[in-house]
């Protein structure tokens, strides 16, 4: 029983801790996931912005390079004079400084004059012009941007570029059918600036970078944006430039270790970014790892979408962070639960130990001890409990003593009764003999007077013995009251009528004051009559001529121990009274103050017995010389056993 209480406490503590931990884990975990991934997404979006900035800056750099060149000393002259070798060397320098893949000058019509690396252009059939150059001529101002240049054009500028631009498209299984198997065009950053002299266009200076298989830009982007941050030995950031939906420049590693050139972007990205021109963020599996990626369209100078700029952040770092945090939550919960267990144990002990002691104390009381050991006094409610327990035991002890006293008394009375009955029965037989033979002797005619008178004495003495024996047997008789509903007033007036003559003869007045609306009482009629007779006879004996005996009845306001209602009968005489030293012996059997030969001393003890068996009490008040009052209280109904 103790263990289950202890375990209940511990279980409830554990339960609460666990629930709290679980709820915060779930709730917190959810919040964490959302915020962590949200943060990561925001970051990637910002990184994309940064990449875009860098991309545009690269174009700006080309512009700057061109501008500087046009401002170079004697550039205008060289151009006007068509000094191709000087122009080529200037172009070469410019290309080197600005890191351009191609550069050249066209005439005012857009026809190429020279390129880097070639002094003159062999007269081939006209190749499609660089759209940027065309734009610059149209605007008569600087033009720049992203441009898709054909294989032919690239070959024209530099055959190696066309080679470089060639990318075989690798399609992942399950993706939609290819539009092209090989990319031949080149995605380029290009700028063109018309050279003006005195309001006339002398020519257009142009230059550009081929993005296909370019490593510088994507790596610079990664370096700048991600600061080459690594996580578990891998860089966390990736940058990619797509020509249409094909990776042409990237630092996303391929499965063989190199760069994943030629791989394609996911369906949904293609749809949203390439076709609809939206920015798109998603968690994606890129080759082998999960990334949070962001994409935006690359438009050329005609605002046509020609490619995609993409950024990716390795998800792993964030995912790990999330798991670590959740793990900490779990650990904290477990620690909390351990603490709860300890606390529960401690608390349970504080409560159980005093309870345990009280239980032991109760067992001691059951075994008979009245001074059980309840251990050291606790505080609060426990102290109250201990105190109440002690009081209860004390009250128990008192009541036990009382009932033992009563038990002893009634046992004594019972054993006296049994003895009396036994003796009486034994005596009756020889007594029969004595009576019979004495009477027979008395019948004889030949007796002398003295003999007759002696015999008479014997007879009288024997008669007395008979009366004593009868009285004894009356006393010992423990008959249960044969109850019926009795009108007590009627019973009493009937009994008093029996006594009327005697009282009259003695000169003692008898008055009856019956109570109004006296309740009916369940009692043994005969027994109660003998009670009334007994007390009345005693009263009569105590009075002398001129005294009076008053009997009155009333409904009693008093209730007995069993909370029963009852009536009171009082018999008051103005006789000689009872001395105080006799009062407590009054109801003892064989107690009598009468002279030898009168009264057996059994009357009142029998009377008390009858009243008690009805559940009632008798009280006596008396004053010597003034009189005595006997008050009988009897319940209306028999006690329910």
């Amino acid at each position, binding site marked *: 029983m103790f263990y289950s209480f202890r375990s209940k406490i511990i279980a409830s503590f554990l339960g609460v801790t666990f629930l709290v931990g679980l709820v915060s884990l779930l709730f917190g975990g959810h919040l964490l996931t959302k915020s962590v991934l949200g943060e990561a997404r925001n970051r990637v979006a910002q990184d994309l912005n940064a990449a875009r900035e860098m991309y545009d800056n690269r174009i700006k750099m080309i512009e700057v390079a061109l501008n500087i060149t046009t401002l170079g000393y004697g550039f205008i002259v060289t151009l006007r004079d068509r000094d191709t070798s000087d122009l080529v060397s200037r172009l070469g320098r410019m290309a080197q400084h600005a890191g351009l893949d191609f550069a050249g000058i066209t005439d005012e019509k857009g026809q190429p004059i020279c390129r880097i690396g070639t002094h003159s252009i062999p007269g081939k059939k006209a190749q499609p012009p660089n759209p940027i150059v065309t734009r610059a001529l149209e605007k008569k101002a600087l033009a720049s941007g992203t441009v898709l240049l054909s294989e032919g054009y690239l070959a024209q500028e530099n055959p190696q570029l066309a080679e470089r631009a060639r990318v075989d498209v690798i399609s992942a299984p399950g993706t939609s059918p290819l539009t092209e198997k090989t990319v031949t065009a080149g995605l380029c950053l290009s700028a063109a600036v018309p050279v003006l002299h005195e309001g006339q266009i002398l020519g257009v200076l142009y230059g550009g970078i081929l993005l296909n298989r370019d490593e510088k830009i994507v790596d610079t982007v990664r370096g700048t944006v991600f600061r080459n941050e690594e996580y578990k030995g891998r860089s966390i950031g990736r940058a990619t430039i797509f020509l249409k939906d094909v990776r042409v420049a990237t630092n996303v590693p391929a499965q063989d270790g190199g760069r994943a050139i030629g791989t394609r972007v996911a369906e949904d990205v293609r749809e949203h970014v390439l076709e609809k021109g939206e920015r798109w963020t998603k968690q994606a599996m890129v080759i082998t790892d999960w990334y949070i990626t962001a994409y935006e369209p690359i438009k050329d100078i005609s605002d046509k979408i020609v490619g995609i700029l993409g950024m990716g952040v390795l998800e792993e770092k964030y995912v790990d962070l999330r798991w670590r945090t959740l793990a900490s939550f779990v650990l904290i919960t477990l620690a909390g639960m351990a603490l709860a267990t300890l606390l529960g144990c401690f608390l349970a002990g504080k409560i159980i130990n005093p309870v345990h002691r009280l239980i032991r104390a109760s067992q001691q009381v059951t075994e008979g001890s009245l001074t059980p050991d309840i251990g050291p006094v606790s505080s609060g409610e426990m102290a109250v409990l201990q105190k109440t327990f002690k009081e209860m035991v004390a009250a128990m002890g008192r009541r036990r003593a009382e009932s033992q006293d009563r038990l002893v008394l009634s046992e004594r009375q019972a054993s006296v009764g049994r003895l009396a009955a036994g003796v009486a029965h034994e005596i*009756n037989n020889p007594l029969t003999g004595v009576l*019979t033979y004495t009477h027979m002797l008395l*019948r004889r005619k030949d007796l002398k007077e003295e003999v007759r008178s002696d015999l008479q004495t014997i007879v009288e003495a024997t008669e007395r013995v008979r009366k004593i024996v009868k009285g004894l*047997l009356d006393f010992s008789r423990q008959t249960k009251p044969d109850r019926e509903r009795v009108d007590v007033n009627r019973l009493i007036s009937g009994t008093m009528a029996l006594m009327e003559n005697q009282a009259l003869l003695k000169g003692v007045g008898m008055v009856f004051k019956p109570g109004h609306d006296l309740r009916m009482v369940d009692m043994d009629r005969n027994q109660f009559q003998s009670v009334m007779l007994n007390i009345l006879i005693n009263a009569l004996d105590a009075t002398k001529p001129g005294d009076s005996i008053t009997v009155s009845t009333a409904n009693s306001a008093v209730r007995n121990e069993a909370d029963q209602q009852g009536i009171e009968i009082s018999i008051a005489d103005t006789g000689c009274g009872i001395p105080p030293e006799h009062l407590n012996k009054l109801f003892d059997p064989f107690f009598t103050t009468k002279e030898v030969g009168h009264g057996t001393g059994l009357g009142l003890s029998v009377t008390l017995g009858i009243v008690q068996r009805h559940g009632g009490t008798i009280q006596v008040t008396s004053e010597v010389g003034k009189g005595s009052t006997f008050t009988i209280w009897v319940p209306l109904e028999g006690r329910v056993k």
Partner: protein
Amino acid sequence: MNILVVDDENIVLESCKRVLGDSFEVVPVTSADAALEVLGRETVGLILLDIKMPGKDGMSLLKEVKERWPHIAVIVMSGYATNETVELVSRTEAATFIAKPFTPVELLEAVAKVMEKEGKL
């Protein structure tokens, strides 16, 4: 007429004999078994029976007598008349009841009453 007296105490038997012996033939026995034996042997007109006897109880003897010899009158003697005894006796219709100790007069009166009832007087 025969009067069978059944009591375990000799003094009671002798007293009954002393009182009734002049007018009747008194047959004293000290036990119920002896009483039954006499009843089987002889004609008895009246039985004086002590209710409280050790061994075979007076009550059971009374019942048996009433069963087997219902025509014989019975007077029950007792040390004390308790309510139960009186009730039992009246139920088995014993003739009458006298309480010990009794005087010769009381005994004779009881016998006379019974005889009158039985129409034997």
